[in-house]
């Protein structure tokens, strides 16, 4: 079949570092297919797509669409050529409605200057209707879920008449159900003659949705295959160059002494129908990984904040080693030894404009004083050198952490939090958006923590992660725990899925 999009011999080197992000890359995409572009973080997928979308210019190479050679100087030119991109992180304005966000930059106008909101809503409604989305154009972005935000991003591109859609890691922040809905949307779009390039590193999804696969590694194309001809293990092998084994042996049941305990923890807000957290009780013991899962919007985020001491609870109590720590300050909690790897790495877990070194001492900066509160610079540098090598962080200690890749930022956070872990650690969505190798690294660390007798709480909407690692599994639904069971062969993906959707509830009617 003839190619629709053809990127030929694309090369891109980054200035100061001399890193070859794309090295003579040639990509062919056929009309009407879902083409998966897979590879680890830093393999060059996003760079290649940024070049296609005009965000970056290649050092050499050509791009042609429909047999016509194109110079894509910026995203506006890309839009004009019928190329649309949905970024990994949503770039929507929270205070605006769906319709306002969709038309942003291409607004319908009244009398040439005034924004025509009614027309915007009507036009956007038409796009939504035509492509069978389930979303209302008048809703504000702050009122909709992450999955819906992604739909809005897609609608935004369709509104600009995109024929070729690029989706960068669209599923990393979605729940199982939202992923399925997204895939339905994509299939629908294909039926209407659109073409999709999907950047991802979740192999099960690649198998599930794509027609063809291009695998990248270290800036080069390693392989192009029809999806039907390969299995997940082969793809993974091509991606990392070695076979990844996902079977982590769960440890023996060991010490088991209660470290952290929540009793009937609730959060109620005025004007909110049901409590945000409703009578949550569970224990986390030493040598144990407690996994808590659920669909986004069911209280996982709030539970994360409560355990981290960043959100006060309305009723109930929390104990650490049998001492009441209900509603103590984050500072006091840190002093008791909390280690915490947060969901929001970029805003909460790190300070992007601050150096790696200064990011690494956030929780331990009290330990680096000479006298009178003056820092011992040598000790700090040594500390950061040690952690950088121990956690294999690819980055210099004096550069702002924001210049590092996502995987390396997460490693900095991990290094900081796990280096002086005492007896409990909270992980929240520790691997989303990360590649196979980084995820594996984090899983190993988590198991290492458990082996050292630490109580590990893992909050994750990734069921596979929970099933692989957790000894005890809790499921949240509408702010309540609806299941709490030891992991075992009877607790399968499907069963957990039923709990997550509220189809099953072990604790209904209990007090």
């Amino acid at each position, binding site marked *: 079949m003839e190619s629709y999009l053809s990127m030929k011999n694309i090369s891109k080197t*980054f*200035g*100061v*570092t001399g*890193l070859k*992000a794309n090295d003579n890359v040639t990509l062919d995409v056929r009309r009407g297919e879902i083409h998966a572009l897979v590879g680890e973080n830093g393999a060059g997928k996003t760079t290649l797509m940024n070049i296609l979308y005009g965000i970056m210019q290649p050092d050499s190479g050509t791009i042609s669409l429909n047999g016509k050679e194109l110079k894509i100087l910026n995203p506006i030119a890309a839009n004009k050529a019928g190329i649309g991109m949905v970024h990994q992180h949503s770039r929507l304005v929270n205070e605006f409605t769906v319709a306002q966000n969709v038309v942003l930059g291409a607004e319908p106008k009244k009398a040439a200057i005034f924004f025509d909101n009614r027309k915007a809503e009507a036009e956007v409604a038409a796009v939504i209707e035509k492509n069978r989305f389930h979303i209302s154009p008048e809703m504000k972005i702050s009122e909709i879920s992450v999955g819906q935000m992604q739909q809005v991003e897609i609608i935004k591109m369709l509104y600009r008449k995109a024929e070729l859609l690029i989706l960068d890691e669209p599923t990393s922040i979605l729940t199982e159900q939202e992923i399925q809905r997204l895939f339905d949307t994509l299939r629908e779009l294909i039926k209407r003659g659109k073409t999709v390039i999907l950047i991802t590193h979740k192999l099960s999804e690649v198998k599930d949705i794509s027609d063809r696969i291009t695998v990248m590694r270290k800036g080069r194309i390693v392989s192009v295959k029809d999806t039907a001809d390969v299995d997940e293990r082969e793809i993974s092998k091509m991606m990392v160059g070695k076979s990844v084994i996902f079977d982590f042996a769960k440890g023996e049941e060991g010490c088991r002494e209660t470290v952290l305990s929540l009793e009937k923890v609730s959060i109620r807000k005025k004007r909110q129908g049901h409590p945000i957290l409703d009578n949550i009780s569970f224990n986390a013991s030493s040598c144990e990984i407690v996994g808590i899962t659920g669909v986004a919007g069911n209280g996982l985020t709030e539970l994360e904040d409560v355990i*981290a001491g*960043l959100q006060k609870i309305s009723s109930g109590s929390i104990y650490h080693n049998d001492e009441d720590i209900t509603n103590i*300050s*984050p*500072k006091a*909690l*840190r*002093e008791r030894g909390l280690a*915490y790897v*947060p969901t929001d790495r970029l*805003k*909460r*877990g*790190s*300070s*992007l*404009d*601050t150096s790696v070194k*200064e990011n690494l*001492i*956030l*929780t331990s*900066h*009290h330990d*680096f*004083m000479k006298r009178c*509160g*003056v*820092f011992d*610079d040598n000790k700090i540098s040594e500390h950061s050198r040690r952690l950088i090598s121990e956690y294999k962080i690819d980055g210099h200690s004096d*550069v*702002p952490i*924001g*210049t590092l890749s996502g995987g390396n930022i997460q490693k900095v956070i991990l290094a900081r939090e796990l280096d002086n872990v005492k007896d409990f650690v909270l992980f929240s969505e520790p691997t989303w958006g990360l590649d196979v190798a980084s995820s594996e690294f984090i899983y190993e660390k988590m198991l290492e923590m458990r082996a050292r007798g630490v109580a590990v709480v893992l909050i994750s909407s990734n069921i596979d992660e929970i099933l692989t690692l957790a000894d005890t599994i809790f499921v949240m639904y509408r702010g309540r725990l609806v299941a709490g069971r030891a992991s075992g062969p009877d607790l399968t993906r499907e069963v957990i899925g039923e709990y997550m959707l509220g189809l099953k509830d072990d604790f209904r009617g209990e007090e």
Partner: protein
Amino acid sequence: MKVNRSDMFVTAIALLITLSAAFMVMLVMIFIMSETPGETLFYFFAGPLTNKYYLGNMFNSAIPLILTGLGIAFAFRSSMFNLGGEGQVYAGGFAATAVCLAMPAAGAFFGITVSLLAAVVTGAVIAGLSGFFKMKWRTDELISSFLISNALIYIVDNFITGPFDDPGNNLLTTSKVAEQFWFNKIFPPSNLDISIVFVVIIAILAFFYLFKTHQGYEMRMCGVNPEFARYGGINVGKYIMLPMLWSGALHGLAGAVYVLGTSHACFKGFSGGMGWNGIAVALIARNNPIAVIPAALFFAYIEAGAESAMINADITIEIASIVQSVVFFLITAQAIYNFLKYRRKAV
């Protein structure tokens, strides 16, 4: 891939472009308004450097600007806005004067110490109030510091023209403080006094405090990313209050140093511009305490240039001020733009 060095390069280029633009505007204005543009230009640029008197005075007028610039930099570093600089300088200067007038016979060392202390405390309390309101009721410190300061200016005015007015002087001013409290001149015949040495030391200490100490680290983390700081167990509330206290203290000190070093009395409106220009100085210095020194000198230079052109060439005081304002305006606009860009990223 973002590279920090290229970021700095862009900033430097931008500053250069702004400076050249300001220079061009100035050229055009002088050519339009002056009969003898060549002469005017000469006095504008070279005037402050032609003799000891001008040169010394230029350095002298940088002294309070360094202090107010530092005061603002401290607040900005913690993402706090102190728009009350004018009032804090004024009240600080007045407090220093009042203390000196109250004990005309005291020893120099004791008198100066107490008077500086009074100024520092006065400034700190005024700015601290805004910090306290923010901590307690989330009042926007930008508004409250401005309002409090504006009200204070009238109160101090009232003291100077009322109970403290020097009856033997036709100007609206207090009496002069006793001579033993005056700072030593170090560059006669100019007004430049010994305090410049201390001010430079304070700038270096401020740098050290911000970047090399435990408290400075916590303060900066609260400034760049409060959520990050809170997450890491830093008491964020403390760093709403503390930077405002520092900021106010430095402003108060600026007032006292001006009174004891230069004017020797507190005359009505002496602080005019010191607070606002401190903001511009901090912005140009990108809140780096060391960079505050050259930034303040630059401001002083433009001011001295305008004055020298006015005295020696044919432009009037109004035109000199207009030229000066255009330069300040352009440079401050550029610096503010950078600052807002940075703040938006951080928040």
